[in-house]
């Protein structure tokens, strides 16, 4: 399986500059993020694990942006409620029995942008090692198995591979980001300075009014691991943080308490009990609103709806482009979106 990846690596056009066709195809992107970013995208390799509706949206965006290579790992079989933009009646086909979601999505991704080389790898997350993970620039996963994810996250963190974990809970959604202990990037600042170099006209020309210059600041950001984020104290949370973060913590706590078993939509009572315990532990006055919120979230634990997938998959896709281009401050470290309040915020949970 790894050999097929290597094979594609060799096949891929490794020329250093964008072709005329690429420049025309990616014209608008280049105008937004610049030619440097476009070149970085071209050399990047993104791994998507689990092509859920939301991850499929991110995958579509990254594919369209002009990333070099994409690898898919997804052992899920298509079900009727899988509403991903990469799944069409055609790609699923008549024979449901043999339809793996990765396979059913593959052609759609290739069609979106034939310049991107896309391949499927059949490999369980638990077998990933340093050598395997190092080939990727970004790893983007959908999954709530926090024990398994913590292992994958540590592997990425150790190898300075960007790790993004996302999941949609129906009307709410989130993604967590860890780009390692020292993520280097730049921030560009535009400055307009009066043009001083030709105030006195040397060649009989009028001076131009002003000149726009760009100042480039080099920065380094440190990211917390998934484990650190999941074990942070509630008493340290900012006031008015979206309660989605409590729900994520409760799911992790549930898994720890139940020997690795994950909560399902039927575990409403168990999660409400857990909420009460955690409230006590952190000395937090219980809020009825939050109890109702946890009940609702539990019922929508694995639900996905198209508009929320489009929104968070869009923000996530843009974040992947930003990380690859290493241009501008990355979101550090969790994005929470609630379509009922309409608010999407970036919180720093350590």
């Amino acid at each position, binding site marked *: 399986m790894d050999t097929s990846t290597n094979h594609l690596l060799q096949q891929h056009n490794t020329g250093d500059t964008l072709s005329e066709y690429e420049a025309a195809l990616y014209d608008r992107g280049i105008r937004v993020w610049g030619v*440097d970013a476009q070149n970085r995208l071209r050399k990047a390799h993104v791994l998507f694990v689990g092509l859920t509706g939301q991850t499929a949206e991110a995958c579509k965006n990254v594919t369209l942006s002009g990333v070099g290579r994409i690898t898919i790992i997804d052992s899920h079989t298509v079900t009727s409620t899988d509403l991903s933009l990469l799944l069409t009646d055609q790609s699923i086909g008549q024979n449901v029995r043999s339809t*793996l979601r990765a396979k059913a999505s593959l052609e759609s991704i290739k069609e979106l942008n034939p310049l991107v080389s896309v391949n499927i790898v*059949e490999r369980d997350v638990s077998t990933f090692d340093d050598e395997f993970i190092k080939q990727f620039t970004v790893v983007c996963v959908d999954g709530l198995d926090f024990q398994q994810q913590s292992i994958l996250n540590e592997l990425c963190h150790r190898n300075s591979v960007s790790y993004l974990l996302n999941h949609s809970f129906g009307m709410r959604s989130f993604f967590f980001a860890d780009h390692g202990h020292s993520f280097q990037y730049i921030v560009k600042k535009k400055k307009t300075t009066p043009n001083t170099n030709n105030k006195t006209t040397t060649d009989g020309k*009028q001076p131009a009014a002003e000149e726009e210059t760009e100042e480039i600041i080099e920065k380094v950001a440190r990211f917390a691991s998934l484990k650190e984020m999941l074990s942070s104290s509630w008493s340290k949370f*900012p006031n008015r943080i979206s309660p989605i973060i409590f729900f994520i913590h409760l799911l992790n706590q549930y898994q720890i308490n139940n020997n690795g078993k994950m909560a399902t939509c039927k575990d409403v009572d168990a999660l409400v009990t857990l909420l009460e315990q955690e409230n006590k532990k952190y000395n937090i006055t219980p809020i009825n609103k939050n109890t109702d919120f946890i009940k609702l979230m539990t019922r929508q634990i694995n639900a996905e709806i198209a*508009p929320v997938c*489009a929104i968070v998959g869009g923000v996530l896709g843009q974040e992947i482009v930003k990380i690859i281009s290493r241009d501008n401050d990355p979101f550090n470290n969790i994005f929470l979106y609630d379509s009922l309040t309409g608010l999407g915020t970036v919180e720093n949970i350590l």
Partner: protein
Amino acid sequence: MNVVVDTDIYINREKERMTEDKFQHIRDCIGDDVFEKVQKAKVLVVGAGGIGCELLKNLVLSGFKDIHIIDLDTIDLSNLNRQFLFRKHHIGMSKAKIAREAVLKYNPDVNIEAHEGDIKNQQYGHQYFQRFDLVMNALDNLSARKHVNRMCLSVGVPLVESGTAGYLGQATVILKEKTECFECLPKEAPKEFAVCTIRSNPSSPIHCIVWAKMLYGRLFDVADENNAVTDMDDNIVEGDPEKGTEVRDTKLEQAKAKGYDHWVFHKVFHTDIDRLARMKDLWTGKTPPTPLLLDDLLNNYQKNNGNNNNNNNGTITTKSIALNSQIVNSFEDNTRAFVEVIKKLKERLEKDGAKSWDKDDDLALDFVVAASNIRSHIFGIPLKSKFDIKQMAGNIVPAIATTNAIISGFIVLEAFKILSSRDQIQEKCKTTFLFKQPSNKRVIYPVSIDQPNKSCYVCSQTVVTLKIDTNTTTIGKLVNEVLKKGLAFHEPMIMKGQSMIYEGGDDLDKEELDARKMVEQKPMITFGLSDNAIIEVHDYLQDIKVSILISHCDKFEDQNKFFEVSGKPPQVQSDTTTAATTTTTDGTVQQEDIDEVEIIEYPPPSDGKLKRKEREQDDITVEEEQMQEEQDPHKRTKK
């Protein structure tokens, strides 16, 4: 470890697939009653571009079953980075039709009607709009947005309006008498430049680019009497022939004999420049421009050819790797390019006839690059790369997939709210902004929608005041520049009291059309449209009637303007025309063509403060203030 194939799981899943409702998740999330409304709703999507593609996909995946889509545009290569329903082999085909085919693959049971057409066309009148429960704009230009706004107001159908620009975007909801409409707040007009700046006194690259586009129009497009960029045979550089004081550029004739390239070059870069250089008033404190002679330049290049490697002389705009088109070519290269491209364009003109300027027409773009850079050189303005000139000349507002996807998600969420409680749209719906970077932690930020602006001339009965020179402005200019371009009427009819002064539209017979042409040429004053006159402008298609109070004015503070419109009641108006500047404008030059991409009307601020509206107080509602405090616990103590 390979994927384990567990037969039992497969059988269970297949059963699940047979029995489970495809839309179970969305039912669970929005409720069965709202979902039933979604399934029954008849909706119109205006525009199948960047937002349109994403929106159609979201609608079909959300359970909408009756969708109309309209777009007049065809697919271009530069669309494919974001308009994900289209493929390379679709280039040149109808966006609406291909988008329909593509989304049917998600659900063949959906009824989608695709129209390749202009939403402003009469066939999409009241009866057409009335059929919909909801209209969603996914448009790229102001005039169509204003038109759909008025159509929806006139039939009382809710409208979701949206726009994007780069990383920024927003979506909002408009409903007659409940929310503010698209035109309740003035929109930023396209950039305008005074004709004298373009023709005589350019000071920045954009002035030369606009000039070069006009020159292209003058030479290679159909004749346009408003295009006064140059008169090809006029060789007078100073003085008045009637008085016998004229000075002529006698070399123009010789240049003309040498060929078209020499003729045009000499005319615009020598004769016209010589004439400007002789206008002493223009150059007080500055060095006047120097006219160029093509033969001298070419001879010089020939001489230097051996020791001057000019092809590598270009400067790169960014410090890092650049595209070829991002390299700023030298003046010499631009001169050579000009001669070359003008020959090709002349050949094309003779073979294929006139062609309007288009940013995606490479020859036309090359002409503007070369011509504008030569002019910039003459006036001491920095030269620009082809990449940058394309953006400026083509008014490109670059659009990307992610922003379009996010905004289309907002649109669908608002659509759910509209369908669930039409009576509470103003309370429940929101204007949602997308930011590039978190501002006070927020990346996605909803704000309340305002009630209608009582002084809006579109959605409230109000009198508009129009300041204009009634002696010199013709009816034709009033109709085209003020009523159509300025106030977005489609087919205006002007009434003064009981008499009809002007009737727009195409359904007139020849006699009426001739009469209209006569009217168009006469100044406003001829028909009694003078100071303090009140006219009524009707537009039957848009079902709008606006009363306009005319206020005569022949001096404008902003010399780029020749009229001013204010939507406030007339008594508030005070006469403050104390402009000291002399007005030399004979109108303004506007860049009219807009890129196929989406534009944003009021870009959200990035510093976290809401400055989205011009009105100063009562802007941030109580709810917003609460939200700001919720987000920032320190805010209160800072106050």
